[in-house]
């Protein structure tokens, strides 16, 4: 008795899989979601309140990471508790989106609001309607 599966490959190719191919459109869809994934998902993982505290704190003067971190601690924001490093990831993300700018001074990196950052912050403060536009939304829209 021979192996009943000997011709399986050609049989499946000619029948079940005959018209089944991963189209160029599908590939493009994958590529597009790869491009979207890093920035948008990362921003979503932080609380609106945290973003607000950080941006508000930079409105008057530039601060370094440690100062921002202490401020969040004072405000009982626990987003970065035991994972302080992630604050720098978020700051870097905001920097990439030109919401904040960073400058090295005396071996420390100081962050300040950019014009774009100030505008976004102003919009969220002005809006008092129930469906307030979120900071995250504005940041994402501004960076498209």
């Amino acid at each position, binding site marked *: 008795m021979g192996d*009943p599966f000997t011709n*399986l490959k*050609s*049989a499946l190719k000619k029948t079940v899989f005959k018209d*089944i191919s*991963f189209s160029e459109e*599908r590939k493009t869809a*994958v590529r597009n979601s790869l*491009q979207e994934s890093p920035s948008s998902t990362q921003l979503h993982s932080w609380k609106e309140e945290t973003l607000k505290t950080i941006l508000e704190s930079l409105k008057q003067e530039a601060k370094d990471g440690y100062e921002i971190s202490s401020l969040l601690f004072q405000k009982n924001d626990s987003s970065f508790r035991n994972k302080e490093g992630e604050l720098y990831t978020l700051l870097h993300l905001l920097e990439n989106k030109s919401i904040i700018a960073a400058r090295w001074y005396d071996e420390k*990196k100081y962050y300040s609001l950019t014009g774009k950052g100030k505008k976004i912050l102003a919009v969220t403060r002005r809006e008092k309607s129930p469906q307030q536009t979120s900071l995250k939304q504005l940041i994402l829209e501004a960076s498209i």
Partner: protein
Amino acid sequence: MNEPEQMEAGFENFDERVQIIDKLMDEYSDAILHLVYTYVKNETTAEDLTQEIFIKCFEKLHQFNERSTLKTWLYRIASNHCKDYLKSWHYRKITLNDKIFDYIPSMSKTEDEIIAKDEEDILAKAVMELPLKYREVVFLHYYEELTLKEISKITAMNPNTLKTRLKRAKEILRHKMTKEAE
């Protein structure tokens, strides 16, 4: 001053990851789609899942270690993703609906039966009707031409178990084919 440099490397890495996924899609997307189809037996679902699989690979690429080849790693993610899907509430719900439809007599079904006369059709159909645990190993071994060792890496199963399953699958198929011939 180290931090910005690390960040730079991270972004280079992003482009590199995109390129790897591009290459994997060029080489294996049809094969993965066929693999997924053998699990879920629905073309649109298979396409959706394949799309998700490549995105998942992209996200997990940093976890890839050189202990397996990129190909077996990709197949493993695909196989796990399909199994998760088959276990999901969503899938159970739609298959229940399909089962209800199966009880409604339809014209197309009889047409299908008439078409399925050719030998290759019969073989393909018989394989697609095998229980999943046999269908999986048969597909990977005979269609993908992978060794039992490679399949064991993909499915996280003992090669001996796979060997037994292949043997059992042959028995089931021979039995089916002789019945068809009668």
